[in-house]
């Protein structure tokens, strides 16, 4: 069974540009989570989808971040325009149910220069 897949694995963009990260969850997993780890800080929750609906987006830093999960399958996280402080590793995780194990992708390392 394929695990959670994230694209790209690395992205280097200039300040002001737009970047879109993609996450393909495990097939059949209704729950999809985005997390971010900024260097030197804890991994922080960004948001949680249940199917195509945003269950909790309390962790989204600001309105430069837009997450979507059209059709309840893969999800995208767009940063527009990117700022230097957006650099970090963005993790996606999925789970079948709320109380079941969440499986993580390998992460996307975003560097804004």
């Amino acid at each position, binding site marked *: 069974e394929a695990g959670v897949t994230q694209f790209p694995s690395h992205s280097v963009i200039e300040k002001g540009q737009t970047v879109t990260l993609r996450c393909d969850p495990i097939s059949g997993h209704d729950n999809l*989570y985005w997390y971010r780890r900024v260097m030197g800080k804890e991994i922080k929750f960004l948001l949680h989808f249940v199917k195509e609906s945003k269950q909790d987006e309390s962790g989204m830093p600001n309105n430069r971040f837009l997450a979507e999960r059209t059709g309840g399958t893969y999800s995208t996280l767009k940063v527009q325009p990117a700022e230097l402080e957006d650099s970090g590793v963005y993790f996606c995780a999925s789970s079948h149910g709320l109380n079941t194990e969440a499986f993580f992708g390998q992460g996307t390392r975003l560097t804004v220069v």
Partner: protein
Amino acid sequence: AQRVTQPEKLLSVFKGAPVELKCNYSYSGSPELFWYVQYSRQRLQLLLRHISRESIKGFTADLNKGETSFHLKKPFAQEEDSAMYYCALVPAGNNRKLIWGLGTSLAVNP
């Protein structure tokens, strides 16, 4: 405030020595506690959850509500245990977001 504290950024032990990775949490209710591990060049994966009361790869962790701790222990460390270990909690209720500690890098030396 909900918080997870891992006081050690780096822990270095010799193979065969006991290891304890500390985790303390701050939460007013009854959280669910987890340990995640990330081996070199691999993805984050669940190691233990306190409700399972399992021993995985020789690791155990006991939730101590009085001390608000969930320390990870292994009596005899192996070189393959070298990895980044994260303690995390999920608050009670339907919100399943993980609240993470900073992580502890464990190095097991031969």
